[in-house]
Structure formats: C-alpha cells, structure tokens
C-alpha cells in the first residue's frame, strides 16, 4: 500500500472501520479510549492531507478505481481540507474530554453505543466534506444526521425532553435532507451527472425551471441543516438537551459542515453564471444573515439556561457566516471560511466549559453559575476567555473573524452591514457578560439546590478544554495560518465560480 496515494480516503475510512468495532468492546473505559485514539489518527491523517494539498494542489481520489464522472470521486482542495482538519481536530479534543461527562450524563449501559454513534457521526461529517459527488454528500449527510439524532436522544437519561427535541430535529432534518435530495434529483435530470465538477460544466449556460427549482430545493434543504435563521427552530432544543459532550461536538462541527456544503454548491456547482446565485445572495442570504445576527442574539439575551443561550448564539453566528458568503467577493468568502473555523473553536470551548459546570452542579441553568469563580476558577476562566473570543476581543480568534468580516463589508460596499456587525457583537457582550457577572460577582448560593460544596472539574476534562481555549488565543495571534489558507481557498473557489478574482 502506498500511504501517500491512499491518504485522501483515510480520514473517512479510519472512523468508519473503527465505529462497528467499538460495539464489540467491553463496557467502561475501553470504548472511550478506542474512540479517542481513532479521532487522533483521523486528525493526523487530515493534517497530513492539508499539508499535501498545500504542496501539490487539488487531489482527486477515485473510489473503486472508477474514473469520475461515473465513479465517486473524493476531491480535496484547500477549502475542504481545512474543514476536514477542523472537524477531526474538534473530534480529537471532544472525544478525549467526553469520558467523565458522558459517564454521569448517559446511561452507562449505552456507553459502547454512544462512542460508536460519535464515530459514525464523525465519519459522516468527514465524508460530506471530502466528497466531490453530489449524491454522496446526501448519503454522508444522512449518516451524520441519523447518528446525531441518536446521540441527542441519549440525553434522555438526565432530561426526558431530549426525546422530543431529538424527534423534532429528526423531522426537520429529514425534511431538509429530502429537499436536498429532490434538488439533486432535478439537477441529475437536467444534466445526467452527479459529479460536482461535471455538474458545474454541464450547468454552464443552462437556466431553466428545472435547474432553478433544483437550486431552490438545495438551498432550503441545506438551510434547514445549517439552521439558517428562520429554519433554526430545531437547534436550540437539540443543543440544550443533548448530553453536554455531544452539544460541544455538534455545535462545533455539524452546522459548519453544512455551511461548507452551501459554499460548495454556490461556488463550485452553480457558479456566478447561474443568475439565481446572485439573487440568492442579495435577497435571501444577506437579509436572513442580518436578521439572524440580531433576532437570535436578542433571544439569547433573555435565556435563563446557559446551553440554550449558547445555542441561540450559534444561530446568530451562522448569520455572520452567511453574511460573509453573500458579499460574493474573495474577502467575504475568506471571512466566512475563517469564521467557520474560528466559531468552531470558541463554541467548542464554551460548550465544554458548560459541560464541566454540568458535571459538578448537575444543571446548566444560569443560577447554577452563581459565584462559580470562587468554586471552579479554572472552568470559569475558560468560559470567560472563550466568551471574549465570541464577542471578538483582540488577541482572540473572534477578533480575527470580525476583522475579516468588517473589511469585507466595507470592500463590498455594504458599509451599513459593518455597523450592524459591531452592533450585534455588543449584544454578544451583554449575554456573555450576564454569565460572567453571575460567575465573578455573585456570592455562591448559601441555600437552594446549588448550595453544595463544589470542586474543580477533573483534569481529564480541564486539559482538553484548555487546549481549545489555547487554540482560541493561538490562532488569534498567529493569523497567518488560518487567514492565509482561507484566503487561498477562497481565491480558488472564486476562480472556479467564475467571479471577479
């Protein structure tokens, strides 16, 4: 076996083969160690892949030696190599973090199933990102979604509402997937191909009702999956009642992968020749992105449950990504890609901090955070630092995102959008500030359910959490890493889409 030749398929095949083996392991520590090891291997393969793409450019891998467009092709450029590294990186941190948290939150008899589902979810997300085949995207999207439904439902051990929120997500997610596959079907009917690059060539100059309807179905379908503002209703409950480790994993990865799919379809499949892309940017993504930024942030302000607050904040942050995307410039696309990466880092760290609080207090309501700085200082500062990153304070990744987004807004002639971005960041300051005030300034409760003696969270949770917090600062200072790669990815996407460089 030539490792370099087979490298492109490894990030998908490693977790895929490992997932069923998890089921044969004994209950207890073994499934967790196995899943963590596999996530690290996957991460290593993804990093190797990023380096390879960086050196040699586009990689095309033919599954089963069938040449595209007939066979399934894995097509890796900088844009999806970055997302692959992000997803597997988050997985390697969250899987390592999960053990203690999962042991108290999930029924112990389900621990093998839990880690198996986590690995399948990872496989699905990696597959969606890596593939160059439109139908394959649907298959992997369903693989990741189905395992996510099961993972969210496992939160029922602590709160039965996890079952209804999982079912709600199942209904909405399935509608999304159905719309997506109807869209793919219409495109297939119009062109006779499913390969993305081939679709792009054959769609050039075609603009009829069937392609337009296909486009609309795909945008709405993916919009449901990525929780685009009015289609986000499944998200808050799903993130709130899922086991904390699952919330951290899917909040940092699932919606990001969906944003990537949207970018891929807009830029690599349809391109700017297709007039609807421009319309969708101007009349759909721009207003919905702006509306999401504000309305979801305002809703987040009034939540008494920290996990639900972070969930609404995620909807708002997706607004930023859609906004950057809708400028249809290299700067905007770069801002969007950078924010995909950075938001994963900050939301992952925030949800992990909440998971530590849940581990000790058993609750994620705002009251449980009172006086936490005195009782769990390490967790408190992790939350505050990643919260600052979410707001966009300099020296954190959040600042880099906002900076790229603001420059892009001015460059694209949407100066008003720049002011709105700053304004909605101020709302983020308020809702993170509420939690920070609760943790720093309030006295620990002397009576009530949270008046229990608390220790700091165990090291097995603190270390992975601080790795992610450190990444928030590191990538906030070393902007050349993510920024340059994202700029080059955006330029390549823009070139393929036929837009102005």
């Amino acid at each position, binding site marked *: 076996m030539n490792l370099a030749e087979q490298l492109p398929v490894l990030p998908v095949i490693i977790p895929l083969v490992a997932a*069923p083996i998890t089921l044969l392991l004994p209950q207890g520590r073994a499934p967790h160690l196995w899943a963590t090891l596999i996530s690290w291997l996957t991460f290593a393969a993804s990093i190797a892949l990023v380096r390879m793409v960086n050196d040699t450019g586009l990689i095309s891998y033919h599954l089963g030696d069938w040449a595209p467009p007939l066979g399934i092709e894995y097509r890796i450029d900088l844009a999806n190599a970055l997302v692959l590294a992000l997803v597997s990186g988050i997985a390697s941190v969250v899987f390592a973090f999960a053990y203690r948290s999962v042991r108290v939150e999930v029924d112990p008899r389900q621990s093998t199933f839990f880690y198996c589902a986590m690995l399948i979810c990872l496989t699905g997300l990696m597959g969606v990102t890596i593939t160059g085949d439109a139908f394959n995207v649907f298959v992997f999207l369903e693989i990741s979604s189905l395992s996510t439904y099961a993972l969210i439902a496992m939160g029922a051990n602590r709160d039965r509402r996890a079952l209804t929120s999982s079912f709600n997500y199942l209904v909405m997610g399935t509608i999304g997937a159905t719309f997506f596959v109807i869209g793919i079907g219409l495109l297939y009917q119009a062109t006779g191909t499913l390969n993305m690059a081939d679709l792009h060539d054959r769609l050039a100059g075609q603009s009829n009702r069937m392609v337009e309807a296909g486009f609309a179905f795909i945008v709405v379908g993916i919009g449901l999956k990525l929780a685009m503002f009015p289609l986000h209703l499944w998200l808050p409950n799903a993130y709130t009642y899922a086991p904390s480790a699952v919330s951290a994993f899917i909040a940092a990865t699932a919606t990001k992968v969906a944003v990537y799919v949207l970018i891929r379809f807009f830029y690599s499949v349809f391109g700017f020749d297709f007039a609807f892309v421009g319309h969708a940017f101007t009349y759909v993504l721009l207003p919905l992105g702006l509306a999401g930024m504000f309305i979801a942030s305002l809703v987040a302000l009034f939540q008494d449950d920290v996990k639900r607050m972070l969930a609404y904040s995620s909807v708002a942050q997706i607004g930023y990504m859609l906004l950057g995307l809708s400028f249809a410039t290299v700067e905007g696309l770069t801002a969007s890609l950078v924010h995909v990466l950075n938001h994963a880092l900050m939301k992952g760290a925030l949800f992990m901090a909440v998971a530590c609080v849940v581990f000790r207090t058993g609750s994620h309501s705002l009251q449980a955070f009172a006086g936490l700085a005195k009782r769990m200082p390490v967790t408190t500062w992790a939350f505050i630092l990643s919260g600052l990153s979410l707001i966009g304070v300099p020296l954190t990744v959040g600042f880099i995102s906002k900076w790229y987004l603001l420059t892009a807004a001015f460059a694209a002639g949407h100066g008003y959008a720049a002011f709105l971005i700053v304004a909605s960041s101020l709302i983020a300051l308020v809702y993170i500030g509420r939690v920070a005030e609760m943790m720093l300034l309030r006295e620990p409760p002397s009576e009530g359910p949270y008046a229990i003696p608390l220790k700091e969270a165990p090291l097995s949770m603190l270390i992975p959490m601080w790795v992610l917090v450190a990444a928030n600062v590191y990538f906030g200072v070393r902007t050349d890493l993510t920024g340059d790669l994202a700029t080059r990815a955006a330029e390549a996407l823009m070139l393929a889409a036929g837009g102005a460089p």
Partner: protein
Amino acid sequence: MERAILRVTTKIFFAPIILYALYVQFHGDYGPGGGFQAGIIFAVAFILHAFCFGLDQTKKALPQRALIVAMVIGLLFYAGTGVATMLLGGNLLGYDVIVPGSTHHAGQHYGILLVEWGVGVTVASTMLTIFYHFTGREPDIDQEDW
C-alpha cells in the same frame, strides 16, 4: 396440539426461505438480487418463526447479542474488502487487484461477492434487531416517570 397447521407450515417453510435468501444472495453479483434483498428474506424466516412460536423462542434460537456481533461482522466484511484492496495496492474497493492480470475482470466478480455478503449479513441482523425492539418493547412509560 394448538395451531398445529401454523406450526407445521412454519417449520416446512423455514428452511426453503433461507435457501431462497442464499439463492438471491449469490445470484446478486451479476444478476438481479443482492445482499440487501437476501438479508431481508433471511430475516423474514426468523420473523415468521417469531410470529408462530413467540419472540422468546426466537431469541433463544438467535440471541440479541449474536445479532449485534453479526452486524459488526457484516460491516467489517464490506469495509475489510475495501481495506484489503488498499493493502494490495489498489484504491479503496478497487476490486481488480484481487485477481491481478485477469482478462475478464475476475477481481470485480469476487470483490462484489464479498461485499454483498457483508451487506446481506448486516441487513439481516439489523432487520431482526429492529423487529426484536419493536415487538419486545416495554410498555409505555408511566406519566410519573417523566
């Protein structure tokens, strides 16, 4: 002898159903059929058994734990074929390397046979697991337990 006709019919039909499943399975590589259909038919034999003799008897013949192992083995059969072709120097699921130098792509024939076998085992055990869980479901949760 209660329901004697049902019992005898089930016993007579059981083996031919499995034989038919195997026929569909091994016919599936170049003709209509294949692992998915075969797996369903295979599971149907056991579902018929459960209808007639009760779920407990079927679970004695084919315990839940065995089904999980079968699911895993089936999937690993499929994925393992892919990994094996990688180790032999081809791409994932590039069956031609199984019989190198074949003039009529014999490797494709063997490869699909192995993969379909994995599909069949997984589908049969998954169908039965779903059936076990639906029919063996505990009564509804008490309002108090919510």
